[in-house]
Protein backbone atom coordinates (compact mmCIF):
# COMPACT_ATOMS: atom_id res chain seq x y z
CA UNK A 1 0.00 0.00 0.00
CA UNK A 2 2.64 2.55 -0.92
CA UNK A 3 4.79 4.67 1.31
CA UNK A 4 4.60 8.38 1.95
CA UNK A 5 7.53 10.68 1.14
CA UNK A 6 7.89 13.64 3.49
CA UNK A 7 10.04 16.39 2.06
CA UNK A 8 10.85 19.17 4.48
CA UNK A 9 12.58 22.48 3.72
CA UNK A 10 14.79 20.95 1.04
CA UNK A 11 17.43 23.11 -0.67
CA UNK A 12 19.99 22.25 -3.30
CA UNK A 13 22.59 24.32 -5.09
CA UNK A 14 25.41 23.50 -7.45
CA UNK A 15 28.34 25.69 -6.52
CA UNK A 16 26.84 29.11 -5.94
CA UNK A 17 23.80 28.56 -8.10
CA UNK A 18 20.67 27.74 -6.15
CA UNK A 19 18.58 25.11 -7.94
CA UNK A 20 15.63 25.27 -5.62
CA UNK A 21 15.17 26.15 -1.98
CA UNK A 22 12.69 25.62 0.78
CA UNK A 23 10.77 22.81 -0.92
CA UNK A 24 8.30 21.30 1.52
CA UNK A 25 5.69 18.77 0.52
CA UNK A 26 4.34 15.35 1.33
CA UNK A 27 3.83 12.93 -1.50
CA UNK A 28 0.77 10.99 -0.29
CA UNK A 29 1.03 7.20 -0.01
CA UNK A 30 -0.48 5.20 -2.86
CA UNK A 31 -1.42 8.21 -4.96
CA UNK A 32 -0.19 9.39 -8.33
CA UNK A 33 1.56 12.76 -8.15
CA UNK A 34 3.07 14.80 -10.96
CA UNK A 35 5.89 17.31 -10.57
CA UNK A 36 5.83 19.97 -13.25
CA UNK A 37 8.04 22.88 -14.05
CA UNK A 38 9.56 24.81 -16.93
CA UNK A 39 12.72 23.30 -18.43
CA UNK A 40 15.76 23.74 -16.24
CA UNK A 41 14.00 24.18 -12.92
CA UNK A 42 15.64 21.12 -11.41
CA UNK A 43 12.85 18.57 -11.62
CA UNK A 44 15.28 15.77 -12.33
CA UNK A 45 17.56 17.06 -9.59
CA UNK A 46 14.63 16.79 -7.18
CA UNK A 47 14.04 13.21 -8.27
CA UNK A 48 17.70 12.32 -7.81
CA UNK A 49 17.65 13.91 -4.38
CA UNK A 50 14.68 11.76 -3.37
CA UNK A 51 16.63 8.58 -4.10
CA UNK A 52 19.83 9.85 -2.50
CA UNK A 53 21.87 10.12 -5.70
CA UNK A 54 22.39 13.77 -4.84
CA UNK A 55 22.74 15.14 -1.33
CA UNK A 56 20.64 18.21 -0.56
CA UNK A 57 22.35 21.17 1.12
CA UNK A 58 19.58 21.49 3.65
CA UNK A 59 16.38 19.82 4.73
CA UNK A 60 15.23 16.24 4.95
CA UNK A 61 13.50 13.55 2.92
CA UNK A 62 11.86 11.07 5.27
CA UNK A 63 10.68 7.68 4.06
CA UNK A 64 9.47 5.13 6.61
CA UNK A 65 11.26 7.00 9.39
CA UNK A 66 14.62 7.16 7.60
CA UNK A 67 16.01 10.49 6.49
CA UNK A 68 17.57 9.96 3.05
CA UNK A 69 19.57 13.16 3.32
CA UNK A 70 21.52 12.14 6.40
CA UNK A 71 21.35 8.35 6.71
CA UNK A 72 24.37 6.11 6.24
CA UNK A 73 25.33 4.62 2.90
CA UNK A 74 24.25 1.21 4.12
CA UNK A 75 20.75 2.39 5.12
CA UNK A 76 20.52 4.21 1.81
CA UNK A 77 21.12 1.03 -0.19
CA UNK A 78 18.56 -0.70 2.02
CA UNK A 79 15.87 1.97 1.59
CA UNK A 80 16.43 2.08 -2.17
CA UNK A 81 15.03 -1.42 -2.41
CA UNK A 82 11.62 0.21 -1.78
CA UNK A 83 12.08 2.26 -4.94
CA UNK A 84 11.56 1.58 -8.59
CA UNK A 85 12.89 4.30 -10.85
CA UNK A 86 12.26 4.79 -14.54
CA UNK A 87 15.10 6.87 -15.96
CA UNK A 88 14.70 9.21 -18.90
CA UNK A 89 16.25 6.87 -21.44
CA UNK A 90 15.45 3.69 -19.52
CA UNK A 91 19.11 3.38 -18.40
CA UNK A 92 19.25 -0.26 -19.46
CA UNK A 93 22.58 -2.03 -19.02
CA UNK A 94 23.96 -1.98 -22.55
CA UNK A 95 25.89 -5.22 -22.24
CA UNK A 96 22.87 -7.35 -21.28
CA UNK A 97 19.78 -8.31 -23.24
CA UNK A 98 16.37 -7.18 -22.02
CA UNK A 99 15.68 -10.41 -20.16
CA UNK A 100 18.93 -10.19 -18.16
CA UNK A 101 18.32 -6.50 -17.56
CA UNK A 102 14.93 -7.13 -16.01
CA UNK A 103 16.20 -10.19 -14.13
CA UNK A 104 19.22 -8.29 -12.79
CA UNK A 105 17.68 -6.93 -9.55
CA UNK A 106 16.16 -10.34 -8.78
CA UNK A 107 19.48 -12.11 -9.25
CA UNK A 108 21.32 -9.56 -7.12
CA UNK A 109 18.85 -9.20 -4.28
CA UNK A 110 16.89 -12.43 -3.98
CA UNK A 111 17.73 -16.09 -3.72
CA UNK A 112 15.02 -17.08 -6.18
CA UNK A 113 15.63 -19.98 -8.54
CA UNK A 114 16.04 -19.31 -12.25
CA UNK A 115 12.59 -20.71 -12.99
CA UNK A 116 10.95 -18.39 -10.43
CA UNK A 117 12.91 -15.48 -11.88
CA UNK A 118 11.73 -16.47 -15.34
CA UNK A 119 8.08 -16.37 -14.24
CA UNK A 120 8.43 -12.93 -12.67
CA UNK A 121 10.39 -11.46 -15.57
CA UNK A 122 7.91 -12.79 -18.13
CA UNK A 123 5.00 -11.40 -16.11
CA UNK A 124 6.57 -7.92 -16.05
CA UNK A 125 7.53 -8.09 -19.71
CA UNK A 126 3.95 -8.98 -20.51
CA UNK A 127 2.72 -6.08 -18.38
CA UNK A 128 4.69 -3.56 -20.46
CA UNK A 129 3.95 -5.36 -23.73
CA UNK A 130 7.46 -6.53 -24.51
CA UNK A 131 6.92 -10.28 -24.71
CA UNK A 132 9.02 -11.67 -27.54
CA UNK A 133 11.71 -8.99 -27.28
CA UNK A 134 13.61 -10.58 -24.37
CA UNK A 135 16.67 -11.46 -26.42
CA UNK A 136 17.17 -8.00 -27.89
CA UNK A 137 19.99 -5.77 -26.71
CA UNK A 138 19.03 -2.24 -25.52
CA UNK A 139 20.90 -0.78 -28.50
CA UNK A 140 18.70 -2.63 -30.95
CA UNK A 141 15.31 -1.29 -29.88
CA UNK A 142 13.50 2.02 -30.08
CA UNK A 143 13.44 4.63 -27.34
CA UNK A 144 9.84 3.81 -26.46
CA UNK A 145 10.67 0.13 -26.02
CA UNK A 146 13.70 1.02 -23.90
CA UNK A 147 11.43 3.07 -21.68
CA UNK A 148 8.97 0.24 -21.27
CA UNK A 149 11.81 -2.18 -20.57
CA UNK A 150 13.11 0.26 -17.95
CA UNK A 151 9.65 0.27 -16.41
CA UNK A 152 9.60 -3.54 -16.29
CA UNK A 153 12.95 -3.51 -14.51
CA UNK A 154 11.77 -0.83 -12.07
CA UNK A 155 8.73 -2.94 -11.17
CA UNK A 156 10.44 -6.29 -10.75
CA UNK A 157 11.17 -5.94 -7.03
CA UNK A 158 7.56 -4.90 -6.26
CA UNK A 159 8.47 -1.34 -5.24
CA UNK A 160 6.47 0.75 -2.76
CA UNK A 161 7.44 3.95 -4.55
CA UNK A 162 7.84 4.36 -8.29
CA UNK A 163 9.54 7.45 -9.70
CA UNK A 164 9.22 8.36 -13.38
CA UNK A 165 11.72 10.76 -14.93
CA UNK A 166 9.92 12.22 -17.96
CA UNK A 167 8.17 9.04 -19.08
CA UNK A 168 6.74 10.88 -22.08
CA UNK A 169 9.82 12.67 -23.42
CA UNK A 170 10.63 11.60 -26.96
CA UNK A 171 7.50 9.48 -27.36
CA UNK A 172 4.80 10.07 -29.94
CA UNK A 173 1.31 11.06 -28.68
CA UNK A 174 -0.11 7.58 -29.16
CA UNK A 175 2.66 5.87 -27.21
CA UNK A 176 2.41 8.57 -24.56
CA UNK A 177 -1.30 7.84 -24.23
CA UNK A 178 -0.61 4.12 -23.89
CA UNK A 179 2.12 4.76 -21.34
CA UNK A 180 -0.17 7.03 -19.32
CA UNK A 181 -2.85 4.35 -19.34
CA UNK A 182 -0.21 1.84 -18.24
CA UNK A 183 0.79 4.10 -15.35
CA UNK A 184 -2.82 4.41 -14.18
CA UNK A 185 -3.43 0.66 -14.50
CA UNK A 186 -0.22 -0.08 -12.62
CA UNK A 187 -1.22 2.19 -9.79
CA UNK A 188 -4.57 0.42 -9.55
CA UNK A 189 -2.78 -2.92 -9.51
CA UNK A 190 0.14 -2.40 -7.10
CA UNK A 191 -1.07 0.59 -5.04
CA UNK A 192 2.42 2.03 -4.85
CA UNK A 193 3.19 5.73 -4.50
CA UNK A 194 3.87 7.22 -7.94
CA UNK A 195 5.79 10.42 -8.60
CA UNK A 196 6.08 11.53 -12.22
CA UNK A 197 8.36 14.30 -13.36
CA UNK A 198 7.26 15.73 -16.69
CA UNK A 199 6.43 18.82 -18.64
CA UNK A 200 3.79 17.23 -20.75
CA UNK A 201 0.64 19.19 -19.96
CA UNK A 202 -1.75 16.52 -21.14
CA UNK A 203 -0.19 13.96 -18.80
CA UNK A 204 -0.30 16.44 -15.96
CA UNK A 205 -3.96 17.32 -16.53
CA UNK A 206 -5.36 13.82 -16.86
CA UNK A 207 -3.21 11.28 -15.01
CA UNK A 208 -2.41 12.36 -11.44
CA UNK A 209 -4.24 12.75 -8.16
CA UNK A 210 -1.89 15.56 -7.17
CA UNK A 211 0.11 18.15 -9.05
CA UNK A 212 3.15 20.14 -7.96
CA UNK A 213 4.76 23.01 -9.81
CA UNK A 214 8.41 23.99 -9.47
CA UNK A 215 9.06 27.52 -10.63
CA UNK A 216 11.71 30.13 -10.04
CA UNK A 217 13.75 28.12 -7.55
CA UNK A 218 10.88 27.17 -5.31
CA UNK A 219 7.81 24.99 -5.16
CA UNK A 220 5.03 27.27 -6.38
CA UNK A 221 2.17 24.97 -5.41
CA UNK A 222 1.43 21.36 -4.55
CA UNK A 223 -2.03 19.94 -4.07
CA UNK A 224 -4.92 17.93 -5.50
CA UNK A 225 -5.32 17.99 -9.27
CA UNK A 226 -8.54 19.96 -9.23
CA UNK A 227 -7.06 22.57 -6.93
CA UNK A 228 -4.30 23.40 -9.38
CA UNK A 229 -6.43 23.10 -12.49
CA UNK A 230 -8.94 25.59 -11.06
CA UNK A 231 -6.29 27.84 -9.55
CA UNK A 232 -6.19 31.53 -10.44
CA UNK A 233 -2.54 31.82 -9.39
CA UNK A 234 -0.83 33.31 -12.48
CA UNK A 235 2.19 30.98 -12.65
CA UNK A 236 0.14 27.84 -12.14
CA UNK A 237 -2.49 29.02 -14.54
CA UNK A 238 -0.02 29.97 -17.24
CA UNK A 239 1.92 26.72 -17.06
CA UNK A 240 -0.98 24.30 -16.78
CA UNK A 241 -2.67 25.90 -19.74
CA UNK A 242 0.48 26.38 -21.85
CA UNK A 243 -0.04 30.09 -22.39
CA UNK A 244 2.40 32.83 -23.27
CA UNK A 245 0.75 35.45 -21.11
CA UNK A 246 1.95 35.26 -17.53
CA UNK A 247 5.03 35.52 -15.38
CA UNK A 248 7.03 32.74 -17.09
CA UNK A 249 9.13 33.93 -20.03
CA UNK A 250 11.50 32.30 -22.44
CA UNK A 251 14.39 32.75 -20.04
CA UNK A 252 12.74 31.60 -16.83
CA UNK A 253 11.52 35.04 -15.66
CA UNK A 254 10.29 37.82 -17.83
CA UNK A 255 11.90 41.15 -17.37
CA UNK A 256 10.01 44.07 -15.94
CA UNK A 257 9.34 45.77 -19.30
CA UNK A 258 7.63 42.78 -20.77
CA UNK A 259 5.54 42.29 -17.66
CA UNK A 260 4.58 45.94 -17.74
CA UNK A 261 3.48 45.66 -21.38
CA UNK A 262 1.42 42.62 -20.59
CA UNK A 263 -0.21 44.11 -17.54
CA UNK A 264 -3.48 44.99 -19.16
CA UNK A 265 -3.70 41.83 -21.17
CA UNK A 266 -6.43 39.66 -19.77
CA UNK A 267 -5.41 36.04 -19.15
CA UNK A 268 -7.60 33.76 -21.25
CA UNK A 269 -10.36 32.00 -19.29
CA UNK A 270 -9.48 28.71 -17.60
CA UNK A 271 -10.22 25.76 -19.83
CA UNK A 272 -12.53 23.07 -18.46
CA UNK A 273 -11.00 20.44 -16.16
CA UNK A 274 -10.84 17.10 -17.99
CA UNK A 275 -11.90 13.79 -16.47
CA UNK A 276 -9.14 11.85 -14.78
CA UNK A 277 -7.86 8.82 -16.67
CA UNK A 278 -9.59 5.67 -15.38
CA UNK A 279 -7.99 2.25 -15.08
CA UNK A 280 -8.78 0.26 -18.21
CA UNK A 281 -10.82 -2.34 -16.30
CA UNK A 282 -13.15 0.43 -15.08
CA UNK A 283 -12.67 -0.30 -11.36
CA UNK A 284 -11.63 2.95 -9.67
CA UNK A 285 -8.21 3.05 -8.04
CA UNK A 286 -8.10 3.06 -4.26
CA UNK A 287 -6.71 6.59 -4.14
CA UNK A 288 -9.02 7.95 -6.83
CA UNK A 289 -11.42 10.71 -5.81
CA UNK A 290 -14.73 11.29 -7.56
CA UNK A 291 -14.60 13.98 -10.23
CA UNK A 292 -15.39 17.43 -8.88
CA UNK A 293 -15.27 16.36 -5.22
CA UNK A 294 -12.45 18.69 -4.26
CA UNK A 295 -14.13 21.63 -5.99
CA UNK A 296 -17.43 20.97 -4.20
CA UNK A 297 -15.76 20.55 -0.80
CA UNK A 298 -13.84 23.79 -1.13
CA UNK A 299 -16.62 25.79 -2.72
CA UNK A 300 -14.70 26.34 -5.97
CA UNK A 301 -16.72 26.56 -9.15
CA UNK A 302 -14.85 24.60 -11.81
CA UNK A 303 -14.62 26.26 -15.23
CA UNK A 304 -17.71 25.64 -17.37
CA UNK A 305 -17.74 22.34 -19.22
CA UNK A 306 -15.53 20.57 -16.66
CA UNK A 307 -15.78 16.82 -16.03
CA UNK A 308 -17.62 16.23 -19.27
CA UNK A 309 -16.87 12.67 -20.26
CA UNK A 310 -16.86 13.47 -23.96
CA UNK A 311 -14.66 16.50 -23.69
CA UNK A 312 -11.62 16.52 -25.90
CA UNK A 313 -8.26 16.49 -24.19
CA UNK A 314 -7.22 19.74 -25.81
CA UNK A 315 -5.42 22.15 -23.53
CA UNK A 316 -6.80 25.62 -23.94
CA UNK A 317 -4.73 28.54 -24.88
Amino acid sequence: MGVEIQIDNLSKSFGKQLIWGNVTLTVPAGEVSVMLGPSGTGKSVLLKTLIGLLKPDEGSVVIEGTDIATCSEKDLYEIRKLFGVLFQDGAMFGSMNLYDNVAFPLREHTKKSESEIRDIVMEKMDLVGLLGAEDKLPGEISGGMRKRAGLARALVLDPEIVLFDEPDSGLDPVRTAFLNQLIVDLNAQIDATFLIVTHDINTARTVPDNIGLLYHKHLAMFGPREMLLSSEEPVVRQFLNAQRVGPIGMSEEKDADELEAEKDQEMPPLPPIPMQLEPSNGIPRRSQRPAGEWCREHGVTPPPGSFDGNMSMATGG
Partner: protein
Amino acid sequence: MSSLTASRVLAPVGTAGKLFAFGLDVGRGLFRRPFQLREFLQQAWFIASVTIIPTALVAIPFGAVIALQVGGLIKQFGAQSFTGSAAVLAVVREAGPIATSLLIAGAGGSAIAADLGARKIREELDAMMVLGIDPIQRLVVPRVLACMLVAVFLNGLVSVVGVAGGYVFNVVLQDGTPGAYISSFTALAQLPDLWQGMVKALVFGLIAAIVASYKGMNAAGGPKGVGDAVNESVVITFMLLFLVNFVMSAIYLQLVPPKTG
Protein backbone atom coordinates in the same frame (compact mmCIF):
# COMPACT_ATOMS: atom_id res chain seq x y z
CA MET B 1 38.64 37.63 -4.99
CA SER B 2 41.33 36.18 -2.77
CA SER B 3 39.04 33.33 -1.82
CA LEU B 4 38.45 32.65 -5.51
CA THR B 5 42.17 32.38 -6.18
CA ALA B 6 42.61 30.25 -3.12
CA SER B 7 39.86 27.88 -4.21
CA ARG B 8 41.46 27.64 -7.65
CA VAL B 9 44.88 26.92 -6.24
CA LEU B 10 43.49 24.34 -3.86
CA ALA B 11 41.31 22.62 -6.47
CA PRO B 12 43.98 20.04 -7.48
CA VAL B 13 44.45 19.16 -3.83
CA GLY B 14 40.72 18.52 -3.59
CA THR B 15 40.83 16.28 -6.66
CA ALA B 16 43.77 14.33 -5.27
CA GLY B 17 41.88 13.93 -2.01
CA LYS B 18 38.77 12.68 -3.80
CA LEU B 19 40.86 10.20 -5.77
CA PHE B 20 42.41 8.95 -2.55
CA ALA B 21 39.00 8.68 -0.89
CA PHE B 22 37.78 6.70 -3.89
CA GLY B 23 40.77 4.39 -3.44
CA LEU B 24 39.76 3.85 0.18
CA ASP B 25 36.18 3.08 -0.89
CA VAL B 26 37.54 0.48 -3.27
CA GLY B 27 39.67 -0.96 -0.46
CA ARG B 28 36.57 -1.29 1.68
CA GLY B 29 34.66 -2.80 -1.21
CA LEU B 30 37.32 -5.52 -1.51
CA PHE B 31 36.11 -7.15 1.65
CA ARG B 32 32.41 -6.89 1.00
CA ARG B 33 30.65 -10.05 -0.04
CA PRO B 34 29.46 -11.46 -2.40
CA PHE B 35 32.63 -11.36 -4.44
CA GLN B 36 31.89 -10.80 -8.14
CA LEU B 37 33.87 -13.74 -9.50
CA ARG B 38 32.21 -13.73 -12.92
CA GLU B 39 32.83 -10.05 -13.51
CA PHE B 40 36.43 -10.51 -12.29
CA LEU B 41 37.15 -13.33 -14.72
CA GLN B 42 35.49 -11.51 -17.62
CA GLN B 43 37.48 -8.37 -16.92
CA ALA B 44 40.77 -10.22 -16.43
CA TRP B 45 40.23 -11.93 -19.76
CA PHE B 46 39.28 -8.67 -21.43
CA ILE B 47 42.25 -6.69 -20.08
CA ALA B 48 44.63 -9.52 -20.95
CA SER B 49 43.25 -9.71 -24.48
CA VAL B 50 43.76 -6.00 -25.14
CA THR B 51 47.27 -5.85 -23.61
CA ILE B 52 49.13 -9.10 -24.32
CA ILE B 53 50.07 -8.56 -27.95
CA PRO B 54 51.02 -4.88 -27.65
CA THR B 55 53.07 -5.72 -24.57
CA ALA B 56 55.01 -8.45 -26.33
CA LEU B 57 55.60 -6.18 -29.31
CA VAL B 58 56.83 -3.36 -27.05
CA ALA B 59 59.07 -5.72 -25.08
CA ILE B 60 61.09 -6.94 -28.08
CA PRO B 61 62.50 -3.53 -29.08
CA PHE B 62 62.98 -2.71 -25.39
CA GLY B 63 65.29 -5.71 -24.96
CA ALA B 64 66.93 -5.01 -28.29
CA VAL B 65 67.69 -1.37 -27.50
CA ILE B 66 69.29 -2.32 -24.21
CA ALA B 67 71.32 -5.01 -25.92
CA LEU B 68 72.50 -2.56 -28.57
CA GLN B 69 73.38 0.22 -26.17
CA VAL B 70 74.96 -1.86 -23.45
CA GLY B 71 76.57 -4.29 -25.90
CA GLY B 72 78.60 -1.57 -27.59
CA LEU B 73 79.64 0.01 -24.31
CA ILE B 74 80.61 -3.26 -22.71
CA LYS B 75 82.73 -4.26 -25.71
CA GLN B 76 84.80 -1.11 -25.18
CA PHE B 77 85.39 -2.17 -21.59
CA GLY B 78 86.29 -5.63 -22.79
CA ALA B 79 83.66 -7.15 -20.54
CA GLN B 80 81.63 -9.06 -23.12
CA SER B 81 81.07 -11.88 -20.68
CA PHE B 82 78.73 -9.59 -18.72
CA THR B 83 76.35 -8.57 -21.54
CA GLY B 84 73.71 -11.04 -20.41
CA SER B 85 73.73 -9.79 -16.85
CA ALA B 86 73.31 -6.18 -17.95
CA ALA B 87 70.33 -7.06 -20.14
CA VAL B 88 68.66 -9.06 -17.41
CA LEU B 89 69.23 -6.36 -14.84
CA ALA B 90 67.83 -3.62 -17.05
CA VAL B 91 64.85 -5.59 -18.33
CA VAL B 92 63.76 -7.23 -15.11
CA ARG B 93 64.35 -4.27 -12.83
CA GLU B 94 63.17 -1.35 -14.94
CA ALA B 95 61.97 -2.12 -18.44
CA GLY B 96 59.51 -4.78 -17.30
CA PRO B 97 57.58 -2.59 -14.87
CA ILE B 98 57.79 0.47 -17.16
CA ALA B 99 56.50 -1.34 -20.24
CA THR B 100 53.80 -2.93 -18.10
CA SER B 101 52.76 0.45 -16.74
CA LEU B 102 52.56 1.93 -20.25
CA LEU B 103 50.36 -0.86 -21.50
CA ILE B 104 48.21 -1.19 -18.41
CA ALA B 105 47.53 2.55 -18.40
CA GLY B 106 47.25 2.99 -22.15
CA ALA B 107 45.30 -0.10 -23.12
CA GLY B 108 43.69 -1.47 -19.94
CA GLY B 109 43.07 1.82 -18.11
CA SER B 110 41.63 3.61 -21.11
CA ALA B 111 39.28 0.70 -21.78
CA ILE B 112 38.07 0.77 -18.17
CA ALA B 113 37.60 4.55 -18.19
CA ALA B 114 35.71 4.44 -21.49
CA ASP B 115 33.46 1.60 -20.33
CA LEU B 116 32.57 3.15 -16.96
CA GLY B 117 32.29 6.62 -18.49
CA ALA B 118 29.78 5.42 -21.06
CA ARG B 119 27.79 3.70 -18.32
CA LYS B 120 27.88 6.87 -16.25
CA ILE B 121 26.49 9.18 -18.91
CA ARG B 122 23.83 6.66 -19.92
CA GLU B 123 22.71 6.75 -16.25
CA GLU B 124 23.45 3.03 -15.93
CA LEU B 125 25.48 3.63 -12.78
CA ASP B 126 22.66 5.69 -11.27
CA ALA B 127 20.21 2.95 -12.19
CA MET B 128 22.47 0.42 -10.51
CA MET B 129 22.67 2.48 -7.31
CA VAL B 130 18.92 2.90 -7.35
CA LEU B 131 18.51 -0.86 -7.68
CA GLY B 132 20.40 -1.04 -4.39
CA ILE B 133 23.71 -2.20 -5.87
CA ASP B 134 26.98 -0.43 -5.12
CA PRO B 135 28.83 0.06 -8.43
CA ILE B 136 32.15 0.20 -6.59
CA GLN B 137 31.62 -3.28 -5.25
CA ARG B 138 29.91 -4.64 -8.36
CA LEU B 139 32.05 -3.09 -11.10
CA VAL B 140 35.15 -1.35 -9.78
CA VAL B 141 36.55 -3.95 -7.36
CA PRO B 142 36.59 -6.77 -9.95
CA ARG B 143 38.27 -4.44 -12.46
CA VAL B 144 40.94 -3.35 -9.98
CA LEU B 145 41.75 -6.95 -9.03
CA ALA B 146 41.75 -8.05 -12.67
CA CYS B 147 44.06 -5.20 -13.60
CA MET B 148 46.49 -6.11 -10.79
CA LEU B 149 46.52 -9.78 -11.77
CA VAL B 150 47.06 -9.05 -15.44
CA ALA B 151 49.78 -6.49 -14.64
CA VAL B 152 51.81 -9.12 -12.77
CA PHE B 153 51.51 -11.52 -15.69
CA LEU B 154 52.42 -8.80 -18.17
CA ASN B 155 55.52 -8.02 -16.14
CA GLY B 156 56.56 -11.67 -16.47
CA LEU B 157 55.83 -11.55 -20.18
CA VAL B 158 57.93 -8.41 -20.69
CA SER B 159 60.81 -9.95 -18.74
CA VAL B 160 60.83 -13.12 -20.81
CA VAL B 161 60.28 -11.48 -24.19
CA GLY B 162 62.68 -8.64 -23.41
CA VAL B 163 65.50 -10.94 -22.36
CA ALA B 164 64.87 -13.17 -25.36
CA GLY B 165 64.88 -10.15 -27.67
CA GLY B 166 68.14 -9.00 -26.14
CA TYR B 167 69.58 -12.46 -26.70
CA VAL B 168 68.67 -12.45 -30.36
CA PHE B 169 70.13 -9.03 -30.99
CA ASN B 170 73.23 -9.67 -28.95
CA VAL B 171 74.01 -13.05 -30.40
CA VAL B 172 72.82 -12.59 -33.97
CA LEU B 173 73.59 -8.95 -34.67
CA GLN B 174 76.47 -8.16 -32.34
CA ASP B 175 78.33 -11.42 -32.62
CA GLY B 176 78.10 -12.07 -28.90
CA THR B 177 78.44 -15.67 -27.79
CA PRO B 178 75.34 -17.45 -26.55
CA GLY B 179 77.27 -18.92 -23.64
CA ALA B 180 78.46 -15.56 -22.37
CA TYR B 181 74.97 -14.10 -22.57
CA ILE B 182 73.28 -16.92 -20.74
CA SER B 183 75.88 -17.81 -18.18
CA SER B 184 76.22 -14.25 -16.94
CA PHE B 185 72.47 -13.96 -16.22
CA THR B 186 72.93 -14.24 -12.48
CA ALA B 187 76.21 -12.32 -12.24
CA LEU B 188 74.55 -9.03 -11.30
CA ALA B 189 70.84 -9.80 -11.18
CA GLN B 190 69.35 -11.57 -8.19
CA LEU B 191 66.03 -13.06 -7.20
CA PRO B 192 64.77 -9.98 -5.27
CA ASP B 193 64.98 -8.07 -8.57
CA LEU B 194 62.24 -10.29 -9.89
CA TRP B 195 60.13 -9.86 -6.76
CA GLN B 196 60.40 -6.09 -6.83
CA GLY B 197 59.38 -6.11 -10.51
CA MET B 198 56.28 -8.10 -9.60
CA VAL B 199 55.43 -5.88 -6.65
CA LYS B 200 55.82 -2.82 -8.87
CA ALA B 201 53.54 -4.33 -11.50
CA LEU B 202 50.96 -5.12 -8.81
CA VAL B 203 51.01 -1.52 -7.55
CA PHE B 204 50.88 -0.14 -11.11
CA GLY B 205 47.85 -2.26 -11.89
CA LEU B 206 46.17 -0.98 -8.72
CA ILE B 207 46.88 2.67 -9.48
CA ALA B 208 45.94 2.44 -13.16
CA ALA B 209 42.62 0.73 -12.42
CA ILE B 210 41.69 3.10 -9.60
CA VAL B 211 42.48 6.25 -11.60
CA ALA B 212 40.64 4.90 -14.66
CA SER B 213 37.60 3.88 -12.61
CA TYR B 214 37.54 7.18 -10.75
CA LYS B 215 37.73 9.20 -13.95
CA GLY B 216 35.18 7.00 -15.71
CA MET B 217 32.68 7.15 -12.86
CA ASN B 218 32.96 10.92 -12.67
CA ALA B 219 32.56 11.56 -16.38
CA ALA B 220 30.08 14.35 -17.05
CA GLY B 221 28.71 16.29 -19.95
CA GLY B 222 27.74 13.76 -22.59
CA PRO B 223 29.91 11.84 -25.05
CA LYS B 224 32.63 14.50 -24.95
CA GLY B 225 32.89 13.97 -21.21
CA VAL B 226 33.71 10.31 -21.77
CA GLY B 227 36.49 11.22 -24.19
CA ASP B 228 37.88 13.72 -21.71
CA ALA B 229 37.72 11.18 -18.91
CA VAL B 230 39.67 8.61 -20.93
CA ASN B 231 42.25 11.18 -21.93
CA GLU B 232 42.70 12.48 -18.39
CA SER B 233 42.87 9.03 -16.91
CA VAL B 234 45.71 7.99 -19.24
CA VAL B 235 47.70 11.17 -18.61
CA ILE B 236 47.24 11.07 -14.83
CA THR B 237 48.08 7.37 -14.71
CA PHE B 238 51.29 7.85 -16.72
CA MET B 239 52.47 10.62 -14.44
CA LEU B 240 51.63 8.70 -11.30
CA LEU B 241 53.18 5.45 -12.50
CA PHE B 242 56.50 7.02 -13.51
CA LEU B 243 56.66 8.81 -10.17
CA VAL B 244 55.79 5.70 -8.21
CA ASN B 245 58.28 3.68 -10.24
CA PHE B 246 61.04 6.09 -9.28
CA VAL B 247 60.10 6.05 -5.59
CA MET B 248 59.85 2.27 -5.46
CA SER B 249 63.20 1.86 -7.24
CA ALA B 250 64.83 4.23 -4.78
CA ILE B 251 63.38 2.37 -1.82
CA TYR B 252 64.38 -0.99 -3.29
CA LEU B 253 67.98 0.09 -3.84
CA GLN B 254 68.15 1.21 -0.20
CA LEU B 255 66.66 -1.99 1.15
CA VAL B 256 68.34 -4.64 -0.97
CA PRO B 257 72.13 -4.48 -1.25
CA PRO B 258 73.40 -4.89 -4.81
CA LYS B 259 74.97 -8.19 -5.63
CA THR B 260 78.74 -8.08 -5.90
CA GLY B 261 80.98 -10.48 -7.68
